[in-house]
């Protein structure tokens, strides 16, 4: 079977499996089928990546030729993101069963079905070459995500889910407005076709408004600084497995779509010229880096702390984009990948602590280092990665980001990156200090080390953090190929 014909099954397998999983009884069966479907999806994504690095693959649905029919269009950039999303989902599922049995004791079929819907939505956004399809898949994944967040164990999860629903829908509708304007001006919904027709109408207010609407709409999904308000509560009160899955995938996919619109549909020599986009993104990114890290330093609830840290990390990615150079984009893609590894490992460690102690508050962690040494060591090692200590994946992405900043002559950014990394030292250190440097207070219950089913996946993620910190051939190669694809499409017809 041809790899191009196999490609859509990456989305279809989880989508179809979700309908079956929803009806399965018990606990083992739904998980097993979910895992199988996710694994198949990840394997297909892994097969597509090498093929898509050289040529752009296109799969027309129902054999309708692209501008009329819907196509899946896969190049180095989205093959990379698709592999990340499906890979992270597979690893998160390894961690899931023990924790989900506790948090969703009954009727796990629908829960896993929602997870599969969210996954297929995210993969659909990534692979499709059709602008309206992006909106539909975005809503499929978002709707499933709202419901997943609402599964959280206390009532604040409901409130977080509702507020996420309101903000997420506003964001998606903004995207729809943008797509409506683009459709009105170009008469097509196919992204590649749109990119070809846009130069004729590029000097119209409608197209400029479309660009603005799309960026704001996707900025909401991405949790870019002033639009990040839904994220901390949604991450903090969702079930741990859902947090782990979202932290590694949802914002990453939003960033990818934003790049796809800015760079491929509009082309950088248009989108960065008609709007002061580079400045806006840079200011918001730096503000996000600072505000996110700053607020994280004072959080008592560790899942909220990591969520605010995510806001800061989104800042690093967007900072790379705002440089509008190949090096900057490479750094952005690299951090997109590495941050997924780092944050998944951190949330797994905290989730494991929550499973054993029932709390994620920093005071309840006191003295835990001696009682749960493996879990807390995993947290500490993943913490090194988020700080950006050499030999970790976090170092690689920060190193490339700094190189990109220097190449663009923005030396002051180097200082800011180092400074915000120091802030990461503070919030990681607080946890380490509480876990190891203080005695376990007598009123806190004694706990034992977590079951292997939680520890092993956590340590796999930690090991990956160090593996990709030492062997960067795969990540840097794929990230720079993705950056080249994004920048290579100067189709707007404008001479810079």
């Amino acid at each position, binding site marked *: 079977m041809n790899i191009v014909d196999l490609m859509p099954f990456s989305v279809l397998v989880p989508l179809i499996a979700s309908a079956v999983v929803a009806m399965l009884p018990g606990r083992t069966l739904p998980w097993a089928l979910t895992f199988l479907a996710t694994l198949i999806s990840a394997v297909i994504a892994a097969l597509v990546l090498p093929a898509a690095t050289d040529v752009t693959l296109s799969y027309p649905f129902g054999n309708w030729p692209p501008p009329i029919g819907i196509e899946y269009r896969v190049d180095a950039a989205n093959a990379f993101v698709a592999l990340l999303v499906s890979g992270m989902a597979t690893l998160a599922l390894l961690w899931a069963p023990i924790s989900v049995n506790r948090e969703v004791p009954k009727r796990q079929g629908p829960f896993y079905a929602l997870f599969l819907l969210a996954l297929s939505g995210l993969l659909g956004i990534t692979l499709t070459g059709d602008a309206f399809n992006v909106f539909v898949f975005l809503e499929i994944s978002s709707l499933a995500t709202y419901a997943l967040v609402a599964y959280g164990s206390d009532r604040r999860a409901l409130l977080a889910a509702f507020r996420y629903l*309101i903000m997420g829908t506003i964001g998606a509708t903004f995207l729809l407005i943008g797509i409506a304007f683009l459709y009105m001006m170009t008469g097509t919904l196919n992204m590649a076709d749109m990119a070809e027709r846009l130069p004729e109408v590029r000097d119209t207010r409608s197209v400029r408004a479309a660009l603005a609407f799309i960026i704001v709409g996707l900025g909401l999904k991405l949790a870019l600084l002033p639009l990040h308000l839904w994220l901390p509560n949604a991450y903090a009160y969702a079930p741990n497995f859902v947090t782990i899955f979202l932290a590694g995938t949802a914002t990453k996919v939003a960033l990818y779509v934003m790049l796809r619109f800015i760079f491929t549909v509009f082309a950088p020599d248009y989108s960065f010229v008609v709007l002061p986009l580079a400045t806006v993104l840079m200011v918001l990114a730096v503000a996000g880096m600072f505000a996110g890290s700053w607020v994280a330093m004072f959080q008592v609830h560790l899942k909220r702390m990591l969520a605010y840290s995510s806001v800061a990390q989104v800042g690093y990615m967007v900072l790379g984009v705002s440089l509008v150079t190949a090096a900057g984009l490479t750094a952005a893609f690299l951090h997109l990948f590495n941050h997924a590894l780092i944050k998944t490992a951190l949330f797994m460690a905290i989730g494991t602590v929550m499973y054993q102690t029932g709390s994620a508050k920093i005071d309840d962690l006191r003295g835990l280092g001696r009682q749960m040494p493996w879990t807390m060591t995993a947290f500490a090692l993943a913490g090194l990665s988020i700080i950006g200590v050499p030999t970790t994946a976090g170092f690689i992405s920060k190193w490339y980001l700094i190189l990109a900043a220097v190449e663009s002559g923005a030396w002051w950014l180097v200082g800011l990156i180092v400074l915000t990394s120091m802030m990461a030292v503070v919030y990681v250190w607080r946890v380490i200090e509480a876990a190891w440097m203080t005695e376990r207070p007598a009123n806190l219950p004694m706990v034992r080390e977590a079951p292997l089913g939680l520890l092993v996946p956590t340590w796999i993620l930690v090991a990956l953090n160090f593996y990709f910190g030492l062997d960067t051939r795969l990540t840097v190669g794929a990230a720079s190929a993705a950056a080249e694809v994004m920048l290579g499409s100067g189709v707007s017809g404008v001479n810079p």
Partner: protein
Amino acid sequence: MSTVLSFFNYWVVVALMMIGFYCVIARGNMIKKIMGLNLFQTSVFILFVTSGKVTGGSTPILREGVELYSNPLPHVIVLTAIVVGVAITAVGLALAVRIQEAYGTIEDDHLGDDDDDERLALEARQRR
């Protein structure tokens, strides 16, 4: 005058969009928020449908003696978007019901800000 009339649909779209958006932001009641969201989305549907109108074109059904048709594609797209909108409304209302059960109110102002883990744990224990 002709500008106002020929762009009538767009004026309606903008007015509805702003009413809906304001409602989402300013209203504390969750049902009103969802209604605002609906209005906001509907305005975008009208925007889409309007873009499909071809001046002088008839309904896009193939028949004798008609040369010029309106563009049917936006209608199809809007159908999909309506389905999405209905799904969002359903999930939003379901969440509002659950919030009513859990908090006893659906006024969003200050809701949940005073929750802390100890009190919630206590309540959960009492319920058991």
